[in-house]
């Protein structure tokens, strides 16, 4: 929202003592964020009010005129291209030596005729967009004066961040901002100049059909509006604050809105006679002021009568009751509507206006009367012969009153950590127009209606008012007085960090962050169909993922051309069976002929994660997974007889979609179950004092036989002297697979004898033969 300091000054006593450039830093930390401070009117020099006393056609040009222009002291010959020049016209003259933007005006010839300056357009002076003709000043403007003295061209325009005003309906106009400045600087806020219309004895016919959506409707009929042209000062103000000047009737509605925050609307009384506020009929079409036809819903509040719509309440008026140049009689609307209804209508129609954005902040219903009287005053100033067409008619169904809040002094001291003096509290709150009664233990605070609507409702709100005006910069930082009782921390964050750190440092993996939904185009490319909980209102990338590994594969695609043999991972959320789950997914990439190596790498990582972080033994078993994984190479990771994760390469056909040369192996671990595993303490066994012996045996199995089958058999061979069994080597022959196993044997009581070792060997070979296996004798 743009604020003109010229207008602020009108509302503040002794405003010349306020530095309107520096005050905004303080305003930012006291009230609301100021985004920009712009100085206006410094783009030109030496421009004076001048009168055209002669006007001739240029002999060489159709467009140009030769003017004689007087500044009251001297006459100047000016060659001018504007179409609206005529004798008696009073305008703005920039003399030789003067400046417009970066252009210094010199004496020069135009089509052979000397010109001693230039008559300026509104655009050249930076006070409007009009560049068609030169700026016309009122006929009573004293000539010779600098134009900056007769028009409020010099101004400071302040842009305030709208977002920081969402909860301050009172700050959506200059008067509210002036009130804040008064509180910040200790200046006095001047009362607003209004005019009470006399009673003429006829009330307007106003019916509110939906009192829950329209709290108040204040209206008056004004006739005999002869002058419908806005004064220049108002046009400049509207231009500076980002509004377009239309005509006087409309401009004053906007002026009052910018001043008080109360949106207003004027209907041409040739079209509108009676007012009814009620909901639209769903599906009806309606042509708004901007010339666009809109389809209404039965939730849209309308201004209407007898089946005819006159405006969308609080949003925009209709085209057929628009104020035209020849309008002389109006019905003025100054109303208060329910905030969220206006917001919903504005959003559903895609029509957010200055009015709707104010109404949706919950305006004070008591503003409507003030605004109407202010409007009447401003219109009467420009139209002394204005005639009242009706009484000021006010339908106010639910009286909105000031609010009383009791603030305990102890609460204030607790929040501030220091004691405020009663008189400071009182003066701060009173500067904001709160009323304060100081009691022994509390303050009884009366909140004015313009703050009580939504913003200030509880004691903590009063604390905020005191704190911000007192100044948070005067608060001394203080350490929390700690409570040092033991507390139970949750392990999941630390577990996640430690695991990530382990993977990055030990296995050189790179952590990635992905989205919670699958990319639709990616799944389509892979021919993978997914159904899961969806984002509402989106048709693409809207299915929440149930498999984090696919997100990793998406990133594999991102990197396949620029990196090789990479390994990426994420601990992320998936949504499965209607609930959140956290998974660790690791993707290892390799050339496809290195699959064996990479697959084993995944196993090594898995095994070591559990061994080094949880001190637990991990067992691999064949498992099953989605069809897009290689089913023959899907291993379950089993801890404590429970599946906690899987290792699985993507199928060849899926991998081919990413790269025909590469394989992608997934290691996934259910992270929630991982956290729940308690760290096992090391299973320490005393070391035997007696030497151990290593016995290596090479067993012959069939080539196609997996090692785990042999292991299942070897599990069954028991002997008290076995300390450890390990796989040393596998050697493939044409039809056979030779597996070398090493037994470490020993005893805690003595050194084993050769007989005992020989006996062990015989027992072992016998066992193998029973299981139809053979051994290579050395």
């Amino acid at each position, binding site marked *: 929202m743009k604020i003109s300091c010229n207008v602020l000054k009108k509302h503040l006593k002794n405003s010349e003592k306020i530095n309107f450039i520096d005050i905004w830093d303080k305003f930012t*930390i006291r009230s609301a964020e100021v985004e920009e401070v712009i100085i206006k009117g410094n783009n030109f020099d030496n421009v004076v009010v001048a009168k055209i006393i002669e006007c001739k056609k240029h002999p060489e040009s159709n467009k140009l005129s030769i003017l004689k222009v007087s500044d009251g002291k001297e006459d100047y010959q000016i060659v001018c291209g504007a179409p609206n020049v005529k004798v008696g016209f009073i305008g703005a003259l920039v003399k030789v030596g003067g400046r417009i933007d970066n252009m210094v005006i010199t004496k020069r010839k135009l089509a052979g005729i000397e010109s001693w300056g230039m008559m300026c357009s509104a655009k050249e002076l930076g006070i409007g967009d009009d560049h068609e003709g030169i700026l016309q000043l009122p006929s009573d403007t004293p000539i010779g004066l600098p134009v900056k003295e007769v028009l409020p061209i010099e101004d400071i325009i302040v842009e305030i961040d709208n977002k920081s005003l969402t909860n301050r309906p009172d700050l959506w106009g200059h008067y509210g901002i002036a009130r804040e400045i008064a509180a910040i600087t200790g200046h006095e806020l001047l009362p607003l100049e209004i005019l009470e219309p006399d009673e003429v004895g006829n009330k307007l016919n106003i019916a509110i059909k939906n009192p829950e959506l329209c709290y108040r409707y204040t209206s008056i009929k004004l006739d005999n509006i002869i002058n419908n042209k806005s004064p220049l000062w108002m046009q400049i103000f509207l231009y500076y604050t980002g509004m377009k000047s239309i005509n006087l009737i409309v401009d004053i509605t906007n002026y009052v809105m910018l001043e008080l925050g109360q949106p207003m609307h004027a209907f041409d009384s040739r079209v509108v006679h009676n007012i009814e506020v009620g909901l639209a009929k769903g599906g009806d079409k309606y042509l708004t002021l901007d010339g666009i036809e809109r389809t209404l819903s039965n939730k849209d509040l309308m201004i209407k009568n007898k089946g005819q719509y006159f405006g969308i309440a609080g949003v925009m008026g209709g085209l057929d009751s628009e104020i035209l140049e020849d309008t002389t009689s109006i019905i003025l609307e100054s109303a208060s509507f329910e905030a969220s209804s206006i917001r919903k209508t504005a959003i559903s129609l895609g029509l957010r206006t200055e009015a709707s954005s104010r109404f949706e902040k919950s305006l004070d219903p008591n503003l409507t009367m003030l605004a109407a009287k202010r409007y009447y005053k401003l219109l009467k100033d420009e139209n002394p012969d204005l005639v009242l067409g009706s009484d000021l008619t006010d339908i106010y169904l639910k009286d909105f009153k000031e609010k009383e809040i009791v603030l305990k002094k102890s609460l204030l001291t607790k*929040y501030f950590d220091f004691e405020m003096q009663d008189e400071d509290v009182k003066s701060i709150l009173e500067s904001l127009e709160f009323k304060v009664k100081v009691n022994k233990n509390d303050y009884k605070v009366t909140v004015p209606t313009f703050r009580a609507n939504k913003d200030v409702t509880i004691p903590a709100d009063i604390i*905020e008012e005191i704190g911000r005006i007192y100044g948070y910069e005067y608060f001394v*930082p203080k350490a*929390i007085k700690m*409570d040092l009782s033991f507390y139970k921390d949750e392990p999941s964050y630390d577990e996640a960090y430690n695991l990530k750190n382990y993977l*990055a440092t030990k296995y050189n993996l790179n*952590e990635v962050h992905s989205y919670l939904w699958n990319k639709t185009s990616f799944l389509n490319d892979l021919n993978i169909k997914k159904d899961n909980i969806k984002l509402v209102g989106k048709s693409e990338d809207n299915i929440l993922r149930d498999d984090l590994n696919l997100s990793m594969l998406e990133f594999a695609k991102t990197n396949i051309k620029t990196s090789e043999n990479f390994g990426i991972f994420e601990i992320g959320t998936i949504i499965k069976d209607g609930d959140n789950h956290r998974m660790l997914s690791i993707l290892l990439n390799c050339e496809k002929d290195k699959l064996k190596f990479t697959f084993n790498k995944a196993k090594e990582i898995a095994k070591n994660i559990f061994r080094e972080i949880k001190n637990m033994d991990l067992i691999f078993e064949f498992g099953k997974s989605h069809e897009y994984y290689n089913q023959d190479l899907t291993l379950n990771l089993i801890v404590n007889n429970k599946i906690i994760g899987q290792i699985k390469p993507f199928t060849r056909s899926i991998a081919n979609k990413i790269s025909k040369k590469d394989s992608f192996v997934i290691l996934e671990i259910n992270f929630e179950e991982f956290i729940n595993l308690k760290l096992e303490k090391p299973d320490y066994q005393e070391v035997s004092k007696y030497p151990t012996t290593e016995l290596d045996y090479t067993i012959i199995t069939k080539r196609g036989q997996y090692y785990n089958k042999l292991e299942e058999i070897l599990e069954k061979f028991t002997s008290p002297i076995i300390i450890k069994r390990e796989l040393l080597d596998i050697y493939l022959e044409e039809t056979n697979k030779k597996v070398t196993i090493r037994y470490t044997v020993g005893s805690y009581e003595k050194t084993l004898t050769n007989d005992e070792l020989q006996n062990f060997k015989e027992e072992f070979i016998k066992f193998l033969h029973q299981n139809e296996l053979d051994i290579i004798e050395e």
Partner: protein
Amino acid sequence: MKEELKKLVESAAVDAKRIKNENDYLNIKSKYLGKKSKLSDLMKNLKDMTTEEKKEYGPIFNKIKKDLESLFTKYYDDVLNKEEKITFDPTIPIKEKKGSLHPITIIAKEVTDVLKNIGFMVLEGPEMESEYYNFTALNVAENHPARDMQDTYWLDNGLLLRTHTSPVQVRAMEKYGVPIKMCVPGRVYRNEDLDASHENTFFQVEGMVIDKNISISNVIYVMKGMLKEVFNQDIEVRLRPGFFPFVEPGFELDCSCTICGGKGCQTCKNTGWIELCPCGMIHPEVLNMSGINPEEYSGFAFGLGLTRLAMMKYKIKDIRVLNSGNLKFLEQFNVR
């Protein structure tokens, strides 16, 4: 005899210099000191000598034996102690490890470590969340714009993707009661179109303290201290009024611009300040709804944008790179 011994010692001294390896050493020892050596032969004469001669030659033989032994050991030691010839290039660069943590993970660790130092628990919470925890229990009114579809990812099962880490405030109050000091780093979601400074998926860290005498001065202390640690430099902070339904008073916390140090630059739009973090005193209604008596307890909460902090700290210009999975970007973040 003496002459022979003298020659023997001289020849041994010459041979000793030729010791190049263990073999030479053993050979020379056997040649001069072994059973079949010249010295051995000469010593055999001892038994035929007179007592006088024995007295004279006995010590001589012993001395020669000892001298030769130490001579050979000395030369062999020299061989053993000699540095090996360098057969490799010690200047070859090593293959660098390229494992990395995501920058958000690194910054989250820094922030949570600082908060842990003053006794904060580190909690986590679900990303798919209920309307109750995300809005209602945080005093966000039924018709508040934040609940709109324009801002929130609603799901077709009636739940939503959490728009902030604040729902964990409520979960923590329910689970642990008061007093409590906790923080919650985590992923949050907003229905935004992506551009260089907007993401629909980003990270925050929530902080919350509730106890009997928590004040605004405590907020300033904690925020200032935390930022100082994270940025490793003194940071000025200022509070501005800000409106968030779950705090009252609510603040926007600005920190002095880390780029220009507060003098004014492009990053801080010439203000010297950067908007960093909404915070405030927990709204009494929020405490009430979680069964905590606001007459007795007060607290503060903040929601620091981790993504924003990471971008500031590492000078990342385009937010989209964070969720891009691009290794050329990610590899640059070493593990702390």
